């Protein structure tokens, strides 16, 4: 583990998303990411946590989510651990703007904005690894 490292213990309550987003953005800003990349990191954390809440935990509000972030060279490594259904999302689906379906935007955001995205199913949930490089 490299320092500074940020860890947040969260609950699967949508009210806590803002806290995670703002904290990781401050952490990214202090680590030297520019405004754009910092905003991207905040959005990805937001979307990934929202997905955990809705898909891994079926919108239960009292389940644990752990976020961890640190810098390895010029890249921020962020992990999100949940103890939900452990189901692999379909990473190949893409947004078709013509179907006008509200939803399905979270994963495409992660894919578009991150340099690395990996879902690692655990025996008791999911470990999501996200990587964002400075450019």
């Amino acid at each position, binding site marked *: 583990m490299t320092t500074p490292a940020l860890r947040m213990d969260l609950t699967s*309550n*949508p*009210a806590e*998303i*803002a806290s995670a*987003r703002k904290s990781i953005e401050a952490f990214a800003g202090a680590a030297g990411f520019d405004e754009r990349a910092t*905003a991207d990191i905040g*959005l990805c954390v*937001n*979307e990934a946590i*929202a997905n955990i*809440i*809705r898909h891994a935990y079926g919108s239960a509000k009292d389940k644990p989510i752990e976020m961890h972030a640190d810098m390895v060279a010029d890249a921020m490594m962020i992990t999100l651990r949940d103890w939900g259904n452990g189901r692999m999302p379909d990473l190949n689906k893409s*947004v078709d*703007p013509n179907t*006008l*379906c*509200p*939803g399905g*935007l*979270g994963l*495409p*955001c992660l894919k*578009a*904005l991150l340099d690395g995205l990996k879902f690692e199913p655990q025996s008791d949930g999911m470990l999501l690894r996200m990587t964002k490089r400075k450019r």
Partner: protein
Amino acid sequence: MAELQHLSTHVTYADITGDTAIFRLKDEIDLHTSPDLRTDILGALTKGEVKKLVLNLEKVPYVDSSAIAVMVEALQKLRKAGGKVYLTNLSPRVKGLLEIARLDSIFSVVANEADVAAS
């Protein structure tokens, strides 16, 4: 308006006149706050003959995909009636998310409320 009394704290102003509903929104909108906004906006669309929904996002520095989903849902409803959703005063960050989601073309993005009439 009687019909729009219990509005989400993210709505600073709401008006329905003729076929046009205007909502001015504020603050960051994410999964925590988008459900109330959804209630307000979809609720307004069921009243009267709304064909133009105008969402003024001048005071909204941030939205996540759940807020975008509310806008898409509103557009679905309005399209059936031949209507449109206008987004005005977008911050760069909000505009950026629409672009990533490739949804900037399905909405009518205009500079400000006055441009809705002109469009």
